[in-house]
Every structure is written in structure tokens, then in C-alpha cells.
């Protein structure tokens, strides 16, 4: 019940906002903020139960949505999705606050789209029916398309269309694969499909496995984005409004990596393992490539976007290392990247609101008129660079450590990215914040306002918390990853997880067939 409430409250908020008269901007913003805050608080209530049983599906709802073909509304939450859901619910109120003054035109539509986006994001992480997952996966596209296309910068239409088509091209292949699986297995329900794949009732030839894996992988790799499918990202980030960039970087990219862990590995373990070498090669290429290209970007947002390519390379490397440490690190890194890169985009947005430029060359010496903004930027930058005691370090360390246990050369090459991250971040920071400040810039710059403090403080606190108190977050992730890795072991009897409704569903299915 709680889970359904968390899922549908944003949708309700979206519908509610549509009935507001468009002049009442204050009321619209306040409503959006209250709804998203309510969702966040409610989502915190999920933690205890998932903690108790991180490998099982908690708060499961499984009812029929469409009778034929049998598409079910099947949602649940486990250790893998818990923190991603909370990340989504946390970032939505933050983005509402971030956009408070930034958005001046079509206020009503903007905040409505934000809530719709939240609905889609939460749904993606909860859906346990492949078709439902696909629906949510696409639902997020629409509001994001409009966020970029309406409230973006100059080249926004190009960026929005590119974003939409790129990701759609990927997910259409996934849809084909989902339908193929339905034709073979007779159901869209993910746990049942998984069970059938395990016990051999649904036997896929290695060719089938390969193509299905590729279809899913391609959809998720575009979303991640994995080199060389990343070119939509700099454009989308470069043109999106601040809130759009935050959500895009922090949550939407994670849908790709989440999909890899949730679906690609357990369903097609053989193909995943067979293809791991070149995927890892692409991931490592992305780590270094993204960092090098980030280094010479003249535009801050594009710089951070390329840095995301680099950081997400670590996540993919961790996923395809098939190692407990690396996978833990990868999932943890998803959250870390969400927090620190989200904060980076937010702070870049604050600079933009003041100076109305994203070119690094237009700044310089910001530290003098805005010391606290600079300090927050510094902490965020250091987190992103991977300084120990801040969050990214833990994720990167685990990924690299796990990868080193599988293949030491991987770790050597990937660790180069850690050096380079310092290069591009420090260089950008120096050019933006150090030096003499021009009179023109000084007249634009003022320090953080209370509203801006309210948005950055939670993220900075999280950076430190996630960097030191990892035991709050990691055990749940670790447990669910252990299960995932168990599932990816080929030729091993699949362990049915403890959820009682699952076995009854299987029986029901056996009767029907």
C-alpha cells in the first residue's frame, strides 16, 4: 500500500496541477513541493522492511492490468531498488526548489512535468513486469523531452529530439525482445520468466540468448550511456534546464545501469558473461575517453556531462566484472554519482542564474564575491574527484578493487580515469573560481540564498555520510547483489526467493498452460 502510494502520489500531483489556473504560480510551486516532499517522507518509510529482507520483494502488489495479453501491474522493492527510489524521491523536491525562480515561462506545465517524471522514475525501479517496466521506461522520456525542448537553452530542439530518438531507438529493441520473450514464455511477469529460465521450462538457445541480451543491453547502454553511444548526453545536458540536468544525470542514467543489473545479468547470464570482455573494454574506454574530452570542454555543463560518461564507465565496469565487490561498488556508485553530479549540475545552474552563461571563460574569481557557493562547489567537486571520506571514493574503490581481483589490467587502465578526473575538475574549478574577479561578474554574483542552501545542504551531507557511514547503505545493496551474482552463475540451481506469492503464481501459471 505504501509503495503504491509513493508511486501514484506524483501522478496525482501531476493531475492536480493540471487543474490549477496558470496564473497562480506560487500555489503551483508550493503544491509541487509539498507533494514531492510528502513522497520523499513516505519513501523513507520503506527502509525498515527492505532492510529486514533485502533479497526478497517487499511491498509487493501483483494484480492484473490487462487481461490479454496478460500484462500485470506487478511492483515491489528490494535492496537493489530501495536507494534508487529514495534518490528519485529526494531529488524531486530538490529540483522543484532549484527551479523556483529559474523557470519563468509556463510554470504550471514545468512543475507538472517534473511530477510526471517522478512517477515514471519511481515506476521504473519498482516494475516487476517486463511490459510495465517498458511503459515506465518510456513514460520518463516524454516529460524529459519537453523539459529540454521547452525550457532549455538555444539548441534545445535539436538536443531534445536527439535525446528522444537516441533512447527510443534503444528501447524499441528492448520492446522487441520483451515481446519475443512473451511469445516464448507466455508471460511478461519478470519473476516468473526468471524462474522459467532457471528451471529450464523456458530454454533459450545460445543464439537466442545472445540476441535477446544484445537487445536489452543496447537499450540500457544508450541510457547509461556507454561509449560510443554517449553523444546525446552532452547535448541533452548542455541544453536542458538545471532541473532537467539534475534529474537526467542523477536518475535517468541510472535506469540504464539498473536495467543491466536487474534484467540483463539474471536473465541472460551466459550471454552476459560471454560478452563481458568487450563491454568492459568499452567501459574502460569510456572512463578515459570521457575524462579526456571533459578536460577540454569550454562549457561547464558539457564538461560535467562528459565526466558522467567517465563515471558511468566505472559502474558498467563494476557490473560486468561479475564480482561481489565490483558489483557492490557499481550499485553504490550509481547513488554516489546521482548525489554528487546532481549537486554539480545544481551549482552550475546557480552560476548560470547569476551570470547567464555556461562558458567557463566567462567566469573567473567567483570565490571572492560568493565564498560559500565556491566552498560548496569545492566539496562537490572533491566528491566527484573521489576524495576519500566523500562518497565517490567508496564506489570507485570497490569497483576498482573488484575489477582488480578479476583482472588487474582492468584496474590499471580504469584507475587512470581517477587521475584525469582530478585534472578536468581542478582545471575547471581554478578557471571559474580563482583569480581576480571582473567588475561585471562581481555585479552579477551574490552568495547562496536560503533557498539555495536548502537544496545543496542535503546533498553535501549525503556526500559525507555516504563516504564515511557506508554501513547505512551498503549492506542492503550487498545482500541483493549477492543474490544477483548467484543468479548469474550458469549451471547452478536457481534459488527461489522467499516471496510466497511467487510460488503461488507459478502454480497458477502451470495450471493455465
Amino acid at each position, binding site marked *: 500500500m505504501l509503495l503504491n502510494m509513493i508511486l501514484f502520489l506524483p501522478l496525482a500531483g501531476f493531475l492536480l496541477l493540471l487543474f490549477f489556473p496558470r496564473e497562480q504560480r506560487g500555489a503551483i510551486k508550493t503544491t509541487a513541493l509539498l507533494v514531492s516532499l510528502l513522497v520523499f517522507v513516505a519513501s523513507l518509510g520503506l527502509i525498515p522492511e527492505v532492510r529486514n529482507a533485502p533479497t526478497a520483494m517487499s511491498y509487493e502488489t501483483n494484480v492484473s492490468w490487462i487481461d490479454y495479453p496478460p500484462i500485470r501491474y506487478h511492483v515491489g522493492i528490494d535492496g537493489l531498488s530501495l536507494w534508487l527510489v529514495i534518490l528519485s524521491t529526494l531529488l524531486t523536491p530538490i529540483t522543484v526548489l532549484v527551479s523556483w525562480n529559474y523557470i519563468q515561462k509556463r510554470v504550471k506545465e514545468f512543475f507538472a512535468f517534473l511530477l510526471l517524471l517522478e512517477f515514471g522514475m519511481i515506476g521504473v525501479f519498482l516494475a516487476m513486469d517486463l511490459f510495465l517496466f517498458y511503459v515506465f521506461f518510456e513514460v520518463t522520456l516524454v516529460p524529459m523531452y519537453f523539459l529540454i525542448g521547452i525550457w532549455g537553452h538555444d539548441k534545445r530542439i535539436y538536443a531534445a529530439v*536527439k535525446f528522444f*530518438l*537516441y533512447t527510443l531507438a534503444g528501447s524499441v529493441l528492448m520492446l522487441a525482445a520483451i515481446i519475443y520473450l512473451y511469445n516464448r514464455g507466455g508471460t511478461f511477469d519478470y519473476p516468473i520468466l526468471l524462474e522459467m529460465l532457471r528451471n529450464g521450462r523456458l530454454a533459450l538457445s545460445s543464439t537466442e540468448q545472445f540476441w535477446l541480451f544484445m537487445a536489452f543491453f543496447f537499450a540500457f547502454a544508450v541510457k547509461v550511456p556507454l561509449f*560510443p553511444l*554517449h*553523444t*546525446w548526453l552532452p547535448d541533452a545536458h548542455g541544453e536542458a534546464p538545471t532541473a532537467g540536468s539534475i534529474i537526467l544525470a542523477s536518475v535517468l542514467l541510472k535506469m540504464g545501469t539498473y536495467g543491466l543489473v536487474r534484467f540483463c545479468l539474471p536473465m541472460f547470464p551466459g550471454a552476459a558473461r560471454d560478452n563481458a570482455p568487450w563491454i568492459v573494454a568499452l567501459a574502460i574506454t569510456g572512463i578515459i*575517453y570521457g575524462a*579526456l*574530452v571533459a*578536460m*577540454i*570542454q569550454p562549457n561547464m555543463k558539457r564538461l560535467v556531462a562528459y565526466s558522467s560518461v567517465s563515471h558511468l564507465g566505472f559502474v558498467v565496469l563494476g557490473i560486468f566484472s561479475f564480482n*561481489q*565487490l565490483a558489483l*557492490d*561498488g557499481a550499485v553504490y556508485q550509481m547513488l554516489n554519482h546521482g548525489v554528487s553530479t546532481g549537486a554539480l549540475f545544481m551549482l552550475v545552474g546557480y552560476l548560470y542564474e547569476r551570470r547567464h552563461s555556461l562558458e567557463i571563460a566567462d567566469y573567473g*574569481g567567483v*570565490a*571572492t564575491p560568493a565564498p560559500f557557493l565556491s*566552498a560548496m562547489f569545492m566539496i562537490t567537486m*572533491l566528491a566527484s574527484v573521489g*576524495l*576519500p*571520506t566523500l562518497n565517490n571514493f*567508496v564506489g570507485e*574503490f*570497490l569497483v*576498482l*578493487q573488484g575489477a*582488480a*581481483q578479476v583482472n*588487474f589490467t582492468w*584496474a*590499471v587502465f580504469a*584507475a*587512470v580515469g*581517477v*587521475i584525469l578526473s*582530478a*585534472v578536468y575538475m*581542478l*582545471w575547471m574549478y*581554478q578557471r571559474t*573560481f*580563482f*583569480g*581576480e574577479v571582473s567588475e561585471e561578474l562581481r555585479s552579477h554574483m551574490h552568495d547562496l540564498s536560503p533557498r539555495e542552501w536548502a537544496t545543496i545542504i542535503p546533498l553535501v551531507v549525503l556526500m559525507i555520510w555516504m563516504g*564515511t557511514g*557506508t*554501513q547505512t547503505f*551498503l*549492506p542492503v545493496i*550487498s545482500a541483493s547483489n*549477492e543474490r544477483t551474482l548467484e543468479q548469474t552463475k550458469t549451471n547452478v540451481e536457481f534459488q527461489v526467493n522467499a516471496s510466497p506469492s511467487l510460488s503461488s503464481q507459478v502454480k497458477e501459471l502451470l495450471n493455465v498452460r
Partner: protein
Amino acid sequence: MHHLWLIPTIPLAGSMINLLFGRRLPKIAVSGVAIGSVLLSFLWVLNVLSGLGGLEEAHIERYFTWIQSGDFNVGFDLMVDRLTAVMLLVVTGIGLLIHIYSSGYMAHEEGFSRFFAYLNLFMFFMLILVLAANYLVLFVGWEGVGLCSYLLIGFYYLKKSAGDAGKKAFIVNRVGDFGFSLAMFLIVVTFGTLDFARVFAQAKDMPVEAGVGTLTVICLLLLLGATGKSAQVPLYVWLPDAMEGPTPVSALIHAATMVTAGVYMVARSSVLYLKAPLAMDAVAIIGLVTAVLAATIGLAQNDIKKVFAYSTVSQLGYMFLALGVGAFSAGIFHVVTHAFFKALLFLGAGSVIHALEGEQDMRLMGGLRSKIPVTFATIFCAAVAIAGVPPFSGFHSKDEILLAAHHHAPWMYWVGVVTAGMTAFYVFRAIFMTFFGSYRGHHHPHESPWVMLGPLCILALLSLGGGYIHIPHFLEPLFPLAESAHESTLVYISVAAGLAGIGLAWLMYVAQPGLPDAISRSFRGLYTLVYNKYFVDEIYDAVIVHPLRDGSRSVLWKGIDEGVIDNVVNGVGRSARNVGSVLRVMQSGYIRSYATWVVLGSVIVVAAISFLGGSR
């Protein structure tokens, strides 16, 4: 429990107070908080050490699990053994003196509270570094001091050169950290843990590696980390630039404490190194090369802080030489004595710079002996100590190193002796250029306040007498005393080299002031090479920095990203549009033409059905 965590946490608290409220506090309160927190930490160190007694065994305190994944587990564990005890005393003791000094030195600077906040933060991380009980916690301190170094070098952030220097320090250190982290990964792969006690216990039972084995690789990677932090060849380039920071920072971070972290780390890992003779040789040779290279560069520098910076690099090379020949305790001994006299040299230089309102060029000094006598007297103590004049502190530690080097390989001893001569020469060259002759500048030198001179005097006493604190003996349980040659001739030779260096400096800069110019003219090529630091920075720029930057821009970004990948993506869009442009010719916009298409189409369909006989 002896609450070791209090030692680093007190300065952290001081740092937080100054960061958050420092701008609103009066300066006296800011410096009070900063100095007080270091003092408390120092007192707590004394309390802990006296409580722990002889420290025959390491005392370990485990607080909480930091990272736990699978069967891998790292905790926030701190420990004290004799090595840590030495480092703790040096860090908090010297740190306290430099904090006191800074309250005078920085009194008229902008960003007073920021400075002390950073300085306290540095103390926090440095203490974490030396207290760590596993490699990962050590790495926290390791990176943390690097961060503080970055912040403090770039303290005058309005100056571009300061920002550049800070960035350079951080990035060069990152290259070292790359090696350090790879070493950690390999340690976990090999030993399954990062805990010092467990790693060393397992390593003790491993055979000494004849060729390049896992332990050798681990040690070489750790060495890469150490060369970054301790400014050794090839990663020493950041330290001279780091002099952009305020002088107390140079004294505390870039002379006395942080840069010796690499020496500490290698000494801490001595169990691993002893099993990897190849890595030991690498340590010794890198140390020796650094010592010579930096000493020669130091001969020709005119900026007083740059001279001492190269001197630091050179002395760190000595320490690495000691480690490499197996004289770990001698290396740590030199860390301690070096902390005394090098901190004093820098603080003294700071006092000179303070007196001359920011002038750092020695060519514009001279004759300051009578104008700032206390500064002169103290800095002179440091100079005789570093020159290895018996019986002062530098003599004792340097001698231990050189004798151990002679036992290992006599040629190392001889190179070391030559370097010792050069060291004595350039330090006294600086002394003579600054304090002797006639004043060449146009400021009005004034002696520094006692809050600055007090620490100088204490350090002067330590520089003179510190050699009698026999640290190798104290460290004996950890590092068995290295076998070393005990020939008094060797001692005489090295002392003679030092005295010769002093004499030569006297000759060139006091007795015959025209001599240096004549020499530099007759060896123009060599002089230019040395004066420009062998063009190492330029070579790095040309070989690494520029290709990386330009290649990333033209090949990766413009070439691959926009040229290839985006071209393919946009090409797909373009081809779809091209196909569409053929088809859209039918879209005339006239309803009647559409209607005609509809009719034609339906006629065709009906005809097709009736001819082919549709499905019935």
C-alpha cells in the same frame, strides 16, 4: 582504550569552528581556537604515550566498519606504535610551533580564519595518516593532506600562479596516488586485507623475492605513491612550485610533515620491502638521483624559498636513500631532524620575507645580520645543522644514512658525500647572500614580533641538540638496526665535504663577490641548464600536457565525438529525411490531388481483389 581518535578530531573541530564562524570571530579568537586545538592534541598525544608506557607492542583501536563487501572488510582503525609515536610528536609538536608562528606571520593577511581552518584540517589528516592501522585509512590521510596542500598552496587564489601551483601539486600527487591505489588493490588480491598487522604477518612468512614478484610490484607501486607525496624523481616537480603558498605552510606541509609521508609509508611497509630487494634498490636509486638533481638545481636559485624547496627535495632523497639501503630507522631519524632544521629554515626565511614586506629574491637582500639579529642567529643554527657540522642534529642523522649507504654500496656513499657538500654550499650561499654584505633592497627591514621569534628559538635549540634524541635506538623493536660501516674516516670525509661547501660559499659570496658571475659566464650552457631546472617542467609540458590536451580536443572531441559518432547519428537522421524528401513530392497540399490518390488507390485495391479473387 586510550581514545586515540581524539588526537586528530580536536584539530578537526578547530577547523570546523573556524570555517563556519571564523569570519565573524576576532583574529585573536580564531588563532586561539586553532592553536588551542593543536595544543590540546599535542597534550593528548603526550597523555596517550605516557599512558601506553614502553610501547613494545602496537596499540590498536578499532572504531567502526567503514567498508564491508563480501568477505572484504575495512574499518576505521587507528594504532600507535613506536614509529607512529615519533611521527605524532613531530607532527603535533612542530605543528604547534608553526601555528603559533603563523598567528604572527598571517596577522595582516586577508582570509586569516580560512588559513587557520585549512591548517587545522591539515593537522587532522596528517594525524589520521600517521595513526592509521590499515592502508585505506592511511590513504584517507594521504589524500586529505594532499587536499589541504592544494588549498594552502592556492591560498592566495587571486594570483594565477598560486592556483596553477595548487592544481599542479594535486594532479602530480594524483599520479602518485594512482600507484598507491593500485598497490592497495594488489595487496587485497594477495593478502585479502588492508590491515597492517594482518598484511605484515602474512608477508613475514613469504620468501624473499629474487626477481619481480607480486611483492616487488606492490612495493614499486607504493614507491610511485611515495615519489608523488615526497617529491621524488620523477614526480618532484610540484614541490618547488608549492612555495606559492604562505611561508608557514611551506614550513609545516612542504618541509616538516606532509612530504615525509612517503618516507613514513615506506618505513611502515618495511616488512614488504625487505622481501623485495629489487624494490629496495629502486628506492635507494630514486633517492640518490633526487638528492643529486635537486641539490644541483638548488645551487643556482635566487628565490630564498626556492633554494630551501630544492633543499627539501634533496634531503627527502637522502631519506629515501636510507630506506633503500635498509636503514629505515636512520631514514625516520632524518625525518625528525630535518623537520627541526628545515622548519626553522623556512620559518626563518618567512621572518626575513616578513621583515622585507614580501621580498623573496636574495639578490635584493644582504646585510640583514645586524637588522634582524634573532632571525639571523636562529637560521644560522639551522644552517649548521643541515650542513652536517658536528655535533648538531643534521650531522647525526646524515651520518647514519651515509654509513649505512657505504655498507650497502660504497659508490652511494660517495655520491651522498658530494651532495652533502653541495647542500652545505647552497644553504650557506643563501645565508651569506641574505645576511652578509651590504643591503641591496629598498625596504626598511624590521625584526619580527616575538610570537614569531619564540618558535624560531625553540626550533633552533632542537636543531642544535636534536641529534642526541637517539631515534634509531627507540625504533629498534620495529626496525633492527641496519648494519653499517663504523669507520671514523668515513665520518671525517663527510664532515669535511660539508665544511668545504661552507668554505666555498664564503669564498664566493663574502670574500670574492665577483666570482659567481665569472663562473656562471664561463659555464654558460651548464648554468642555463641548472638555472632552468634542467627544463623538466618544459619537457613534461611538451611530452605529456600538450599532447594530452590538444589530442583530446582535436582527435577525441572534434574528431571522434563530433566527426565520427555524431556524424553517424546525424547521418541516420539525414538519410531518413532524404528518403522522405522523395516521398513528400506527392504531398502537393491540394486536397483534390489527395482525393485523386485515394480514389486511384481504392480502384486499384478493388481491381486487385476482383482479379486475384480475395479471400473468401
